[in-house]
């Protein structure tokens, strides 16, 4: 493979950190320590990781309701993330946002979003800003297969194509929109949607971090050169419930889920790295162990952090809130 061991292990480490964070978040959500609705990124780690490997802190992304993976891959602080999931004052949003509204503006994450497809208009606007400022930044807008049926997605694709904005649309096709498998999405592939807007589109194996990395690389490069948007469909499968607490899953077959556990991205990548003699058992252990330690630290940080003071509920609506709150 043409990539350095360092680079590949970096991707691996990111995926493991996401998985470890999510596994812990699930456990803590079931315990009731992590609050609110939590949508896990487990099984989709290759997408955020592969895409973000092409971005710098100056580039923007818009995330989704399933956004922990995007945050971590973009370089977020895991302690502040966990603390936010706890609703603590040291969290990214000072306890006001929680999982679905987590953001880190300092690294270009323009927010998770509780509204399906809600990030795409925002991404389009960031793209407009970049074009006017004439910088070489790009924006990556993540959305799901279910989201692809919202009008906002179509509007955003046309808009970014019209203005040739540096926006990369990444459709994470995990084949479910909550309880629905595919039946609500027409078209043979989400890439077909791009045809109507004259946007180049490509479908990749979303469980293959290198495939995602390379597809994104081309799209990002194109965007930086002022050539406009690209749509990438990353094919994956939602191996967990829609959210923590989605237990019965009457809407799908348990067998199917087991099957897809065989194809999950981290196991696949580990296999590949091992075959290439790039990952020893000791290294593997260390990566998982480091991640576990980092997560434990984050959990402790969250647990030991204070609740936000009640009066802080009246802060942060406006930069200047004079006479606006009462």
């Amino acid at each position, binding site marked *: 493979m043409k990539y350095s061991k360092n680079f590949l292990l970096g991707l691996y480490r990111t995926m493991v950190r996401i998985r470890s964070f999510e596994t812990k978040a699930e456990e803590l959500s079931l315990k009731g320590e992590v609050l609110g*609705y939590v949508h896990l990124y487990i099984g989709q780690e290759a997408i955020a990781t592969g895409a973000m490997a092409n971005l710098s802190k100056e580039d923007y992304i818009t995330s989704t309701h399933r956004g922990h993976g995007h945050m971590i891959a973009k370089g977020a602080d895991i302690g502040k993330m966990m603390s936010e999931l706890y609703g603590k004052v040291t969290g990214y949003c000072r306890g*006001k946002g929680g999982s679905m509204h987590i953001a880190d503006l300092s690294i270009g994450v323009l927010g998770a979003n509780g509204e399906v497809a809600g990030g795409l208009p925002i991404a389009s606007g960031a793209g407009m800003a970049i074009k006017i400022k004439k910088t070489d930044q790009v924006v990556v807008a993540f959305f799901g297969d279910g989201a692809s049926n919202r009008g906002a997605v179509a509007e955003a694709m046309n808009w970014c194509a019209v203005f040739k904005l540096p926006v990369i649309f990444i459709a994470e096709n995990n084949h479910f929109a909550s309880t629905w498998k595919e039946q609500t999405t027409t078209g043979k592939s989400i890439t077909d949607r791009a045809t109507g807007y004259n946007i180049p589109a490509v479908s990749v194996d979303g469980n293959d971090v290198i495939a995602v990395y390379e597809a994104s690389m081309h799209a990002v490069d194109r965007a930086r050169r002022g050539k406009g948007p690209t749509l990438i469909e990353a094919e994956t499968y939602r191996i967990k419930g829609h959210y923590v607490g989605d237990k019965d899953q009457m809407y799908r077959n348990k067998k199917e889920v087991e099957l897809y556990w065989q194809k999950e991205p981290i196991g696949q990548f580990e296999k590949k790295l091992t075959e290439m003699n790039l990952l020893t058992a000791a290294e593997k252990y260390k990566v998982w162990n480091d991640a576990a330690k980092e997560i434990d630290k984050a959990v402790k940080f969250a647990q030991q952090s204070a609740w936000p003071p009640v009066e802080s509920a009246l802060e942060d609506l406006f930069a200047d809130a004079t006479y606006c709150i009462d």
Partner: protein
Amino acid sequence: MRELTFAEALGEAMLEEMSKDPTIFTYGEDIAKQGGIFGAYKSLLGKFPDRVIDTPISEEVLLGSALGAALAGMRPVAEFHFADFLFTGMTAVTNQIMKFRYMTGGQAKVHLVLRGPDGITRSGAAQHSESIETLFMHIPGIKIIVPSTPYDMKGLFKTALKADDPVICFEHKKLYETKGPVPEEEYYIPFGVADIKRQGTNVTIVSTSRMLHESLTAAEYLQKEGIDSEVIDLRTLVPWDKQTVLNSVKKTHHLIVAHETWKRAGWGAEIAATIQEEAFSYLEAPILRVGAKNVHIPFSPKLQDFVVPDHENVASAVRKVLRG
């Protein structure tokens, strides 16, 4: 009398009316395969496969199609999933559904129902916790039901399913699991008729939905302090039962309006402005309103509790209005 949950009462209303009327059908995101995210459609699981329909995430068509289906002779019941997501298809409601009959000079009956959850949960945060019923009271063209008990839920909803006008029903998330008596016999509750859920003489508390229960709790506490509260459940906001409120205020001379939605420019302001206008000389103290503070619903529980009102806020308002 047998007890049902609020969710079951809604399900039963749907089941009864759908069995009688083949033009009723219902659709929305994640309703058919799992009976709705809050279980409101459990009673429909496996029944009426042609008339209980899961849809794409496309709220503008979801809401707007209700108008088209009504015009084509059906009685659609569209679930909006979360009140917050009415906004993703809002134009279909405010520019189409609510205006159609008027703009066309009364050519059609727009019999359709929009329904779904609103209000807080534990840490739903800003995009999954809103109560926005006031908007539909301000803009003309839709009737609003905001039930507080399983009994009202069923009776009002059955009326909605027979109505010839658009109706929007807001079901508070925290109410779905609450239980209450629901008679076996069929009944309908007319719109615009408030229910005095507690008789009292010192102060009138007007409320709906979750805050109705908080108001009743407040009334219990206040009783111990010697304050006798009358608690009125409006049950519908368009139309709202002005007469019942006026009669009560003429007796108690004091009024509190309590709702979960934002106090500022919330529907409590309409009640207050109307009652001060029509019962000015009966009022012995200003009308006070209880509502959410003017920020969004925060994630962290203590922040949420601080922003959104509960029985303590109602009780303090009553004390303030009676004792100055």
